[in-house]
């Protein structure tokens, strides 16, 4: 119907390599980008500041995590700690007088360094032990932030992020400006992630994920690529952490980057669908927004049903629903929301001729 496609008809390599071979999908992406870029002009502040902004930042973080988990197949349970390193580095750098861009770069580099050290454990252990190693990293970073006053700010656990300017001129103070900064970074990372799978680096990571012995036999330098994967992913995570601190919270606290957040990011990646760019966006939106909707819609719905539950029970109900969502998705659709989107898309690809061969799936 919308797609108007009945087969692959590429006549040049360039056409074959396109990210979106279908014209309809190019239009779709264009429209989405336009809508996202112009959101501050038409979206009410509540939705922009409380939903759109955090969702794109968390989607960016999930993309970074997906590089290490979805592409390279290494489990990372401490990604929030990596983001914390970036956020604290950037906030301290900017407070010390560095320009915003330098702060962001420093954030990326500091996180990449920490990621590299964490990745070094991946040289010794893998699989489950790596997961627990990154878990230890998570606790260690939290402990350092809380217990080293020079980093965490001592008894004042919330460090305010100062107002910044982009390129030294454009002040990032209004909600719209902050949103655009986050969006720009998100678009950059998305473009990178869309293309990384087509580079030698991306292919090496996938080889690692599938079977590292086999990858080594094929000539992929396993150690080097594992370390690279960890540091690139951490670089992205560090800057995203800084963006999160400067544009959304405008402050840093250790709790912003606690184990819960790491688990939340994992859930975003898994519910969205590992190794899929679209999945990171869908997963981030789902995991971030659904608990809020539950907490706002559930009391009303229960009240209407004549079940006025105490607020304490309601808040635990939220936790239960959140856990049940994770469990439910893993059991019922292990490939995540991206797979559900695929199924719907491949249905409409040839609709109404359901019997036709699906060539674009």
């Amino acid at each position, binding site marked *: 119907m919308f797609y108007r496609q009945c087969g692959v008809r590429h006549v040049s390599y360039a056409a074959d390599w396109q990210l979106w071979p279908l014209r309809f999908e190019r239009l779709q992406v264009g429209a989405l980008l336009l809508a996202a870029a112009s959101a501050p002009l038409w979206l009410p502040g509540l939705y922009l500041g409380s939903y759109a902004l955090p969702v794109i930042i968390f989607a960016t973080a999930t993309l970074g995590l997906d590089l290490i988990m979805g592409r390279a197949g290494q489990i990372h349970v401490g990604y929030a700690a990596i983001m914390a390193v970036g956020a604290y580095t950037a906030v301290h750098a900017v407070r010390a007088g560095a320009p915003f861009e330098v702060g962001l770069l420093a954030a990326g580099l500091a996180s990449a360094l920490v990621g590299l050290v964490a990745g070094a454990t991946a040289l010794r252990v*893998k699989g489950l032990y790596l997961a627990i190693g990154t878990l230890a990293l998570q606790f260690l970073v939290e402990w350092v932030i809380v217990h080293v006053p020079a980093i965490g700010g001592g008894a004042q656990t919330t460090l305010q992020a100062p107002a910044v300017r982009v390129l030294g001129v454009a002040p990032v103070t209004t909600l719209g400006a902050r949103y655009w900064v986050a969006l720009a970074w998100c678009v950059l990372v998305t473009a990178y992630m869309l293309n990384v799978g087509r580079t030698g680096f991306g292919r090496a990571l996938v080889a690692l994920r599938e079977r*590292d012995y086999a990858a080594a036999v094929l000539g992929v330098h396993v150690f080097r690529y594992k370390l690279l994967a960890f540091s690139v992913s951490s670089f992205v995570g560090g800057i995203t952490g800084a963006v999160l601190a400067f544009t959304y919270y405008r402050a840093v606290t250790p709790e912003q980057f606690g184990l819960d957040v790491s688990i939340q990011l994992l859930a975003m990646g898994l519910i969205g669908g590992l190794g899929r760019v679209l999945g990171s966006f869908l997963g981030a939106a789902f995991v971030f927004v659904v608990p809020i909707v539950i907490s706002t819609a559930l009391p009303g719905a229960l009240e209407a049903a004549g079940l006025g539950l105490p607020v304490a029970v309601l808040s*635990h109900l939220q936790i239960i629903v959140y856990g049940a969502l994770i469990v439910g998705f893993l059991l019922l659709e292990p490939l995540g929301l991206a797979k559900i989107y695929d199924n719907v898309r491949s249905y409409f690809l040839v609709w109404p001729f359901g019997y036709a061969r699906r060539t674009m799936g």
Partner: protein
Amino acid sequence: MTLVFLTELAVNGALVGLMYSLVALGIVLVYKSSSVFNFAQGALVMLAAYLVWAGSRVVGVVGGVLAAAAAMALLGLGIERFALRRMIGQPLAMALMLTLGLEILLRGLGPAAWGADTKRFDLGLAEAPLFLGDVLVNRTYLAGGAAALVLLVLFALFFRTRVGITLRAVSDDQVASWSIGIRVERAVGLSWALAALAATVGGTFWAAVQGVDWSVSLLLVKATAVAILGGLDSLAGAVIAGFAVGVTESVVSGYLDQVVGGGTKEIVTLALILLTILLRPHGLMGREIIERI
């Protein structure tokens, strides 16, 4: 004075450590049979504590523990049957995330059902100080530590029975066990049930120590350290590591807290996890089958 102080720190630390291993045993049991790290054990202990508390209000402490044990064993079987079994053949990250999801789900369940306020649970042990010589010992911890040792002996005996031997076979090689007619799924289910039973014992004693509320589930962190240090597939390792973690924590914080002016207990746990993973990933008594590449 200092010697008494040191002994007291060591003895109480050791007992607390043994109680940590009550929680760690559940992680080890599941890992042995299915190579899945059970992140839900903390929440299982919490739920067991709630059940024991609720049961003991109706049918007394002993009856409460027995009823909770039965319910928990069923829950363990159910978790394997309806959740973990579908993870066979999926990437490891999926199974880990599943246990994390279960942890969140179960952690909400107890407080939602019985209220979030801390519940008082009494084993009927006196709270007055107990002196062994000059050394002061906590009665509840003493009972908990003893229970950990008893549980270890029971498990050791169990692994000598016919069912236990099949469990050991499954932990050695799942495919080989399958080919000689052992029902691997059933064995894994049984290990989950055993983990849930261990959680009941752990929940009972931890409830007596700190009362029943969500914070019982935080024991997962200590239990992880203990399980890793002991070696993920060794029951005896878990108990020995619990002992070691408890003594180190208690003695180190006893001498260092005053110097550093901060709680050093948690950093000891962290350092133990990190050092074990870096220096000896298979832990004190685990089998060395770590692939390295």
